[in-house]
């Protein structure tokens, strides 16, 4: 989703600041910096601070109570379960897709790459809708599912399906450009020297792509745990049963139980912060690794 991705290292700003041809007059510089940072604080920092401030407004006791509530715990468990199923599925897909696209030439390669990105351009609400049309009571397979007493919509399988749909591209789109940039000489050498496919992948490819892989996994995980629109359509909002954490936040909020809503929301905000920390760490590691090979 970030166009720069893991491949891009940062450059030193002093290169521009110490060059008379590439710097602005001090007051222009101050104005640009001021406008940029004011926008940054207003739109990114304040909402983040507000989550924690609202969560702790009624004190630590209320906060802990909201998080240890049985429905909240059930929501946390379901969210972890959904991520534990959908991330590995999309991990295997991402590696397979990147292997075929980056290591081989074939017809329709560019089109396939575009198709993989498709879920990014579909509204989450529509992602939920398609599974209702397929598996809902009035859907294509609705009658068959009812006859066999299988519940997908308004149950956990529907939530997993919608989450998998939304997160399909995350790992593939990090790996494809990375593996394309690395070429295939190393793998070819390994194969010529007698390594089988599995050994080549495990010993040669995987060490080269590990940071990109991890990068994709944490972004995929963040979205899987935080998805709201798609999951909201297929969940049915049954407390303690089909409520993920974001849906639990919504229910509490709509009941005007703001302190509890923000308490659960603060856990998700923490998840976001951990994701961003790991992301920066991986970018740093990857740039170190890139420097070593140069």
């Amino acid at each position, binding site marked *: *989703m970030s166009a720069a991705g893991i491949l*891009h290292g*940062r450059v030193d*700003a002093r290169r*521009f*600041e110490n*060059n008379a041809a*590439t710097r602005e007059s001090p007051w222009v*510089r101050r104005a*640009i910096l001021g406008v*940029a940072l004011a926008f*940054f604080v207003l739109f*990114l920092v*304040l*909402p983040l601070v*507000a*989550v924690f401030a*609202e969560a702790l407004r009624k004190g630590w006791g209320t906060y802990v109570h909201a998080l240890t509530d049985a429905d909240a715990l059930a929501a946390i468990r379901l969210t972890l379960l959904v991520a534990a199923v959908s991330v590995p599925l999309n991990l*295997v897909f991402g590696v*397979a897709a990147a*292997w*075929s696209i980056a*290591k*081989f030439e*074939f*017809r329709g390669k560019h089109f*396939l790459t*575009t198709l993989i990105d*498709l*879920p990014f*351009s*579909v*509204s989450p*609400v*529509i992602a939920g*809708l398609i599974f*209702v*049309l397929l598996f809902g009571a*009035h859907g294509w397979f609705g009658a068959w599912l009812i006859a066999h007493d299988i519940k997908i919509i308004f149950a956990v399988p529907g939530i997993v399906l919608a989450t*998998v*749909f939304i997160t399909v591209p995350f790992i593939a789109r990090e790996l494809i450009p990375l593996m394309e940039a690395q070429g295939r000489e190393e793998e*070819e050498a390994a194969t*010529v020297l007698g390594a089988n496919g599995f050994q080549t992948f495990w010993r040669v490819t995987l060490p080269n792509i590990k940071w990109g892989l991890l990068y994709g996994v944490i972004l995929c995980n963040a979205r899987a*745990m*935080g998805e*709201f*629109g798609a999951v*909201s*359509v297929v969940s049915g909002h049954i407390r303690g049963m089909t409520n993920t*954490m*974001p*849906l639990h*936040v919504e229910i509490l909020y709509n009941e005007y139980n703001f302190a509890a809503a*923000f308490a659960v*929301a603060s856990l*998700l905000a923490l*998840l*976001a912060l951990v994701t*961003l920390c790991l992301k*920066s760490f991986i970018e740093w590691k990857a740039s170190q690794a890139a420097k070593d090979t140069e």
Partner: protein
Amino acid sequence: MSAVATFFNPTRQTRVLPGFGLSLGYTLVYLSLMVLIPLSAVFLRSATLSWSEFWYIVSDPRVVATYKLSFGTSLLAAAVNAVFGLALAWALVRYSFPGKKLVDALIDLPFALPTAVAGIALTALYAGNGWVGQVLEPLGIKVAFTPLGVLVALVFIGVPFVVRTVQPILEDLETELEEAASSLGAQRWTTFHRVILPILTPALLTGFALAFARAVGEYGSVIFIAGNIPMVSEITPLIIITKLEQYDYVGATAIAVVMLVFSFVMLLAINLLQAWSAKRSGRNR
């Protein structure tokens, strides 16, 4: 699997590496089962409608009001992000200031923060008694539960797109161009809008288009702050949900088709823009 391999590789060039048929076959099967077949359900379902029935649903005044709001605020939000995103990318690449690494890392917050959390946080900030609402309300500006609230939420979720498309292009920009312009006597502003801006334009447009496409489909961060008043502050994704809750599957599907067609057009436009951007800046992805 060899059939797959034969279709995609008609010349049958020799391959050293193993696993082409398996990996491509798995990719195609998984993508079809998880994405393509489910998506086609929307189009097949709407095909049961006659053209006039379809038109009746998608041109209902309440639905048209949602298009106007969704597309209008999304365009505005993308424009706001183009301006401030460029300023942020510029500051991040060209200036050193304390806390720069932290700012750089937090730019991606809207990708990492669940949309529902963003939604309730923005509502708390912009409501009459919120930190920002308190300041704006005495000035006669109401944000929460108005179309302006929709705009605020869409600006939030669009922040990273422009910054992250413009930033790498700015970093790769050769200083020689500006040195040449400067030595030929160009003022800084002239250099910016005659030399730098034309190089940035494709990336800026790509970021704009990405932010716009994302904003039109956005749901979670908007519904809390919008107030969801029919004809005033109701977005298109919400009306799909409303119809689903009334078991009006046909109505929901018809509106979904309108949104999907728009998404596909945007996807095509973004692909073309990215190709242009890569060509203009001499970068290959």
